[in-house]
């Protein structure tokens, strides 16, 4: 079963990435707060809403910014200090910036050369092929669509055959077919024994990755587990539903009396119900309205968005 706020992990010999008590503060803003986890070979998803701290955590892992507190080890080393380990990491950053005056072929060849690949040009050709880009296309990347730029970044991250891949929102801008292909690619890389860390703010995307998930919200690690475990965890939480009805007080009383509602707040022409059994509520609402001779106009879930799931997971701490 998944764990909410796991204790700091013990040293793990098979861990490829170790994050221990990491916090990162920018001025007054706490971007990451006391996060600990380890990641082994395979695909791991870092799931969280925009602004949750995913990119900051990735930057800390890659050594692009030092943690304010705590330690990070990638393949046993600190990427900020260790030149060797930098060549064993492939990063596809979230930001869109590329060397815009280069073609995709030139960009990925440069990436291969700066990663000390012995034969950069064949490596670049192969990496571009993996992401379905034409190595012979001489168009500058400045003229590329968002999806094509994303694939250029992926090719650059893959070109040196890294042991650890850190991919920040890599599926953004890709069409469904490309997404499917990239997800297959990530699994293939994971199966080869690489550590593939993929961030996303889209729950369904992470579900398709079918991987271990680290949920991060408001800079904190809210939960870990696989997708099924995470869904179960989320299903434990009360659901919040707004019911628009012309006799809200009677409706509220009936729902509390039946035990369907664990909390109710009543407004002028609606009520907000907290329930642990949303299916039961769904079954009861229409018959109840009929029984109370109430005019039911709308039933709207208020907390089905990912943000509220994260909030729940964090508050449950």
């Amino acid at each position, binding site marked *: 079963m998944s764990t909410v706020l796991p204790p700091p992990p013990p040293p793990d010999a098979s861990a490829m990435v170790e994050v221990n008590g990491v916090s990162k503060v920018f001025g007054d803003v706490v971007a990451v707060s006391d996060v600990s986890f380890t990641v082994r070979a395979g695909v791991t998803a870092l799931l969280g809403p925009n602004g949750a701290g995913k990119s900051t955590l990735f*930057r800390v892992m890659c050594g692009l910014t030092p943690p304010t507190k705590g330690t990070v080890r990638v393949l046993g080393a600190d990427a900020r200090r260790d030149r060797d380990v930098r060549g064993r990491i492939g990063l596809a950053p979230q930001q869109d910036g590329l*060397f815009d005056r280069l073609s995709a072929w030139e960009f990925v060849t440069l990436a291969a050369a*700066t990663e000390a*690949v012995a034969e950069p040009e064949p490596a670049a050709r192969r990496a571009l092929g993996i992401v379905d880009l034409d190595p012979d296309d001489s168009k500058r990347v400045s003229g590329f669509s968002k999806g094509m730029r994303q694939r250029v970044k992926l090719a*650059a991250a893959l070109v040196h055959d890294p042991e650890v891949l850190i991919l920040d929102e890599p599926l953004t801008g890709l069409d469904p077919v490309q997404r499917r292909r990239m997800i297959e690619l990530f699994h293939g890389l994971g199966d080869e024994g690489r550590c593939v860390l993929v961030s996303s703010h889209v729950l369904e995307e992470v579900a398709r990755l079918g991987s271990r998930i680290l949920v991060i919200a408001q800079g904190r690690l809210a939960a870990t587990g696989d997708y099924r475990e995470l869904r179960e965890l989320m299903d434990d939480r009360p659901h919040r539903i707004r019911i628009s009805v012309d006799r809200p007080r009677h409706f509220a009383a009936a729902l509390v009396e039946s035990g369907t509602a664990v909390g109710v707040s009543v407004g002028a022409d609606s009520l907000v119900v907290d329930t642990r059994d949303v299916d039961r509520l769904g079954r009861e609402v229409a018959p109840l309205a009929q029984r109370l001779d109430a005019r039911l106009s709308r039933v709207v879930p208020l907390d089905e968005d990912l943000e509220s799931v994260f909030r729940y997971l964090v508050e449950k701490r």
Partner: protein
Amino acid sequence: MTAPVPSRTRRHVPSLRAAALTYRVLVRQVLTPGKMVALGGLGALMMLVGWLVGLNTVEGERGAADLLRDGAGYADGFGLIIIVPIVSLVFGSSVLGETREDGTLVYLWLRPMTRAPVVVGAAAAAATAALPLTVIPTAVGGWLAADRVAGSADVALAAAAAAALGTAAYSSLFVLIGLLVKKPIIWGIGYVLLWEGLAVGLGDFAARLSLRGYTRSVLSRVGEIDYGFDPHTTTTALVVLAAVSVAGLALAAIRLNRLEVD
């Protein structure tokens, strides 16, 4: 789909190769049409004004020595004070500064390369872009302003040497500034106008702390022209300009190593 990419056989990029790779990509990035047109236009203006100055010289009214002094003074006053630092500022501060702003620095930073060659490659890219736009207008402008009299070619050569050395030193300094501050152009213009422009006039000690004092010394000594100030020796000027170049690069490498990269 998951065909493995070729395995790496080396862990590090050798320093020379790292510098060359950095140079190759950044020289293309930094040479944008907008910058070339704007800064090329500034150089063209200097040459045009120099030509007009030479054109308006009344034959026989001033001796050859006076004309050479005029040419050197013009190369100093327009070329070494304005063109050299401004052009160096634009290319030097942007060569790594812009990569920092647009997020591309990560593609040079998260690599098995040491920082110093990256900085050297970047400074070389900035200097390559800047040199034609500083040396040609300064040399040609000085030559034209001296009305092309006998000896004006020496003024042009001395101006070219001073502009080239100044460009190297300023570029190195501005690569550092591009990594130190946001909006480096504003800081750099402040430095050029307030310090380099005025310091020379504030007395000997202040002049020693400005690069212009050394670039104009090169112009005066190499061209063997006395145009109204007490120059440093050639050796002193060369050593100081070289030391500033090296120190700027060394500090930029340290800064790059400590930088927080987006």
